[in-house]
C-alpha cells in the first residue's frame, strides 16, 4: 500500500517488501546489519548515544526519550533485563501487533540492540493473552530463526555479547500494560502496579535494573542504528522526530495502521489515508489515544500529530490510536463504553480507581436508561475530580480526561438525557430495611 508521505516505510516495511517476516527476505534487505554494526563497530554507549541523538521518544504513550531512559540504567548492577511491553491493550491500538506479525525481525533486532546498549543479556517480551497465536506462531518462529542464524544466543557475531530472548504471555489484563504491573505479572505475581520509587530502571524485574520499552520504540532502534541519527531526524519535527504508526479506527471509511512522519495533521490521516468519514458525516470528536485519551473536538482536526502540538491542543498523542466519532455517535454512550472498559480493567489495588470507575458506570447507566437527573451530571464531574490525582497508577488517572472532555464538549447531550421529572424529592430511603 502506497503511502504518499513516505517513500519507504520505516517500520511497516512489509508493506513495501513482501514476506519480510521470513529471515531470508529480511536478511536480503539489510536484515541484522544494524545489529552487526552495533556489536562490531559501536560500544554500548555509542548505541545509547545514537538513540539519544535521534530524539526517539517512547511510542507506548508517555513519549519519554528512549535514549535518556537507557542512560538511567546503572552500569554496575547485574544482571539487567530488557522487558518489551507488547501488552498492547489500549482500545483502538493495534500497531505493535502488525509489527510483530509482519515485520518481527526488525523488532527483534531492536530488542537485541537495546540489550546490548544497556548491558542486559536477557530479554522478555511480554504480550497480552490474546497474542496466543502470534506468540506461539510467527514471533516464536522468528526468534527461533534468529537463534539459528546466531543473532541470539551465545557470542553473537563472535563478540562477547550474549543474549537470550523469551516470550511471555499475560492472561489478558489491561493493567499489565503499566510497566510495574507488567513486571509483577512477569514475576508471577498479581498484575498490580508497584509503588514508585524505586523505578524499574533501578529495581525492576526481580529487583534488578530493567528497561521497559514498547514494541514500536524498539522497532525504531534498528533503522536508527543502521542509518544514523541524522537520517532518522529527516522525518518528523524537531522535538518529535521519526515516523509513527497511527492506528485509525472508528467511523472512517478505511480504518487501519498508517505510518506517517510525526507532525502530520490529523485531517490528513482521516481524510486522505482513512478515506474520510462513513457516509460523509461530520467529525464529532477525535480520541487520539484510545480509551484513555481526552476527546478532541472537530475544531482540532488540523492539529499536527506530534507530542507537543497534541498536548497544546488539549489532547495527547499517546500510542496514536485515533478513534474517530462522527455526529451519529452519542457522546454519553461513547463515554460510558470507555468507563465500562476501565471499570472492567481496574486492578482493584487503590480505592479511587476501584470504586470510582464502578460508581461512574452506575451513574452513566442511570443516565442512559433515562432516570438520571441534572445532579447526576454534576456527580460525574465530582467523581472524576475526586479520582484525579488520587489514584495509585495511571489507569485510574486515564479515566478522567475522556470523561471530562466529553462533559465539556457535549454537556448538552448529557443534560438532554437527564430528566427533570426524576428530580422529585424522594423521601430518604430506609437503608437499613433495604439491607436487612
Amino acid at each position, binding site marked *: 500500500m502506497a503511502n504518499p508521505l513516505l517513500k519507504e516505510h520505516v517500520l511497516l516495511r512489509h508493506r513495501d517488501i513482501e514476506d519480510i517476516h521470513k529471515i531470508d527476505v529480511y536478511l536480503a534487505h539489510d536484515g541484522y546489519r544494524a545489529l552487526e554494526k552495533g556489536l562490531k563497530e559501536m560500544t554500548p554507549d555509542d548505541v545509547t548515544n545514537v538513540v539519544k541523538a535521534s530524539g526517539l521518544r517512547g511510542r507506548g504513550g508517555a513519549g519519554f526519550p528512549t535514549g535518556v531512559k537507557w542512560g538511567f540504567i546503572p552500569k554496575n548492577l547485574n544482571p539487567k533485563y530488557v522487558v518489551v511491553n507488547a501488552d498492547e491493550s489500549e482500545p483502538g491500538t493495534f500497531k505493535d501487533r502488525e509489527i510483530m506479525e509482519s515485520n518481527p525481525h526488525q523488532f527483534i533486532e531492536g530488542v537485541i540492540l537495546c540489550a546490548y546498549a544497556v548491558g542486559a543479556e536477557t530479554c522478555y517480551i511480554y504480550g497480552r493473552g490474546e497474542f496466543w497465536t502470534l506468540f506461539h506462531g510467527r514471533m516464536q518462529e522468528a526468534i527461533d530463526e534468529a537463534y539459528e542464524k546466531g543473532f541470539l544466543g551465545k557470542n553473537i557475531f563472535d563478540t562477547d555479547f550474549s543474549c537470550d530472548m523469551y516470550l511471555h504471555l499475560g492472561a489478558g489484563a489491561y493493567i499489565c500494560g503499566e510497566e510495574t504491573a507488567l513486571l509483577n505479572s512477569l514475576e508471577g505475581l498479581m498484575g498490580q502496579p508497584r509503588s514508585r520509587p524505586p523505578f524499574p530502571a533501578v529495581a525492576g524485574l526481580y529487583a534488578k535494573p530493567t528497561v521497559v520499552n514498547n514494541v514500536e520504540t524498539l522497532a525504531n532502534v534498528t533503522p536508527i542504528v543502521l542509518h544514523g541519527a541524522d537520517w532518522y531526524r529527516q522525518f518528523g519535527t524537531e522535538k518529535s522526530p521519526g515516523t509513527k504508526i497511527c492506528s485509525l479506527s472508528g467511523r472512517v471509511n478505511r480504518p487501519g495502521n498508517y505510518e506517517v512522519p510525526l507532525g502530520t495533521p490529523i485531517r490528513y490521516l482521516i481524510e486522505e489515508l482513512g478515506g474520510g468519514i462513513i457516509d460523509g458525516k461530520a467529525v464529532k470528536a477525535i480520541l487520539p489515544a484510545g480509551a484513555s485519551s481526552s476527546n478532541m473536538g472537530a475544531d482540532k482536526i488540523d492539529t499536527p500529530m506530534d507530542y507537543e502540538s497534541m498536548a497544546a491542543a488539549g489532547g495527547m498523542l499517546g500510542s496514536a490510536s485515533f478513534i474517530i466519532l462522527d455526529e451519529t455517535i452519542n457522546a454519553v454512550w461513547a463515554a460510558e463504553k470507555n468507563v465500562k472498559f476501565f471499570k472492567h480493567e481496574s486492578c482493584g489495588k487503590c480505592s479511587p480507581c476501584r470504586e470510582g470507575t464502578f460508581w461512574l458506570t452506575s451513574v452513566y447507566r442511570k443516565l442512559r436508561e433515562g432516570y438520571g437527573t441534572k445532579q447526576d451530571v454534576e456527580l460525574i464531574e465530582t467523581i472524576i475530580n475526586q479520582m484525579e490525582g488520587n489514584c495509585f497508577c495511571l489507569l485510574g488517572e486515564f479515566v478522567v480526561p475522556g470523561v471530562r472532555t466529553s462533559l465539556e464538549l457535549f454537556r448538552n447531550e448529557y443534560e438532554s438525557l437527564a430528566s427533570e421529572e426524576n428530580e422529585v424529592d424522594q423521601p430518604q430511603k430506609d437503608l*437499613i*430495611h433495604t*439491607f*436487612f
Partner: protein
Amino acid sequence: MINQLKDVVTGSAEIAKAMGVTLKYFFKKPVTHQYPDEPVEVYPRFRGRHVLKRYDNGLERCIGCALCAAACPTDCIYVEASENTDEKRYSPGERYASTYDINMLRCIFCGYCAEACPTEAIVLEHDFALAEYNRWDAIYPKERLLEPHDPDYIVLRSDEEFKLSETWGKK
C-alpha cells in the same frame, strides 16, 4: 332560739348546696374507669412497656446489635447476640438476639432504646401494668417482650379524639 333557727336554715342551705353538687355530678358521666373490667384509653404516643416487633413474615426485627443497651441511661437492657443459621433462623440477617432482657424496675421509659434501634425492633408500647409479685419477674426476657402483646385492658384513643384534644392544656 333564733340562733338555733338560724343554724338550721344555714345548715340546710349548706346541705342543699352540697347535695346540689352531688346531684350535679349524679347526672354527669363518671370520670373513673372500671379497671380492669373496662379497658383504659391511652394516647397513642404514651410510652409504656417495651415490645420487640416482628416483620410480617414472623421473623424478629431485632438483630441483637445492643445499641439500645448502649443508649439506655439506666443500663437496664442486656443483650447477647448469636449467629443465625439456615436451620434456625430468628431474624433476616446473620445476627439475632439470643438473650434480650429488660429490667422493668430500672427502666425509666425514656424511649432512648427505641430511638437507637436501627431496625425499629424495640418500641415502647402502651402497657402500663407492670406490677409483679417477685422482683425477679420484673426482668422481662425476650419471650415476654416479643410480639404479640395486646393486653385487652388497653385501647388507643382514636384520632378523632386526638383532634378534639387540640384545646388540651389551654383550659
